[in-house]
């Protein structure tokens, strides 16, 4: 049920734009140029908007929250794809927990090409829940 990345053309290259259905030529691009890089500054407002829109005034509810969690990840992924970032694979992770005074710690480490790959995170809290959303963008050579 997962989407497959489609080989896309970079219009700035000297290759001609191919119509769908025809063979796609190699672009020989092994590094994203600056405009198409996954920049945290551009992606963070996307995530923030989704969290604020969907979670303000929501309370932690045992049954509803698991569905809500999945919806959030799908929505964030859809919006990131819509924002451009050609040739990028995305991994979006969302964790929603109830606020009861417990201690939580979340950390991550990545083994990737730091020139082309990056991540963006956002945290949302209200009185009854906290939500952490992370989106990783990995360039596909």
């Amino acid at each position, binding site marked *: 049920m*997962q*989407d*497959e*990345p489609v080989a896309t053309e970079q219009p700035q290259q000297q290759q001609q734009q191919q119509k769908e259905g025809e063979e796609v030529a190699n672009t020989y691009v092994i590094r994203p140029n600056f405009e198409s890089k996954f920049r945290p500054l551009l992606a963070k407002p996307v995530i923030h908007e989704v969290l604020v829109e969907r979670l303000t005034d929501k309370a*932690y509810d*045992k049954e509803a*929250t*698991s569905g*809500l*969690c*999945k919806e*959030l*990840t*799908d929505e*964030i*992924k859809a919006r990131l*794809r819509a924002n451009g970032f050609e040739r990028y*694979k*995305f*991994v*979006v*992770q*969302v*964790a*929603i*927990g*109830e*606020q*009861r*005074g*417990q*201690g*939580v*710690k*979340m*950390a*991550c*480490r*990545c*083994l*990737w*090409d730091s020139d082309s*790959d990056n*991540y963006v995170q956002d945290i949302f809290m209200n009185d009854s829940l906290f939500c952490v959303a*992370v989106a*990783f963008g*990995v360039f*596909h*050579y």
Partner: protein
Amino acid sequence: AGMDNLEATDESSFSVDEVSNIIKESVEDVIGTAHYSHNKVGQWTSSVIEQCVNQLTRLGKPFKYIVTCLVMQKNGAGLNTASSCYWDSQTDGSCIIKWENKSMYVIVSVFGLAV
């Protein structure tokens, strides 16, 4: 389509079993039966992740890895996590392990993306 990869012992497909063992070993090693301590959590998460990444590198596969670790004190509070990925389902994969001891929950997720 993803199920076909379970049979392939191809170098370039994500092996869920191997990764799952790596994760379980790392968590047992670093945390084991320890009691939740606010001062040590940072250290624990870093060590678990570092150990996972080192073992994953040793596998020698052409993958980029993303490892996340979440530690939560047992308090009766609820926690939900979800992830959504846009990738090539034939070569990429993920492994998410939920582990617990008497005083805390640990969730480690490893995403492997083929180069």
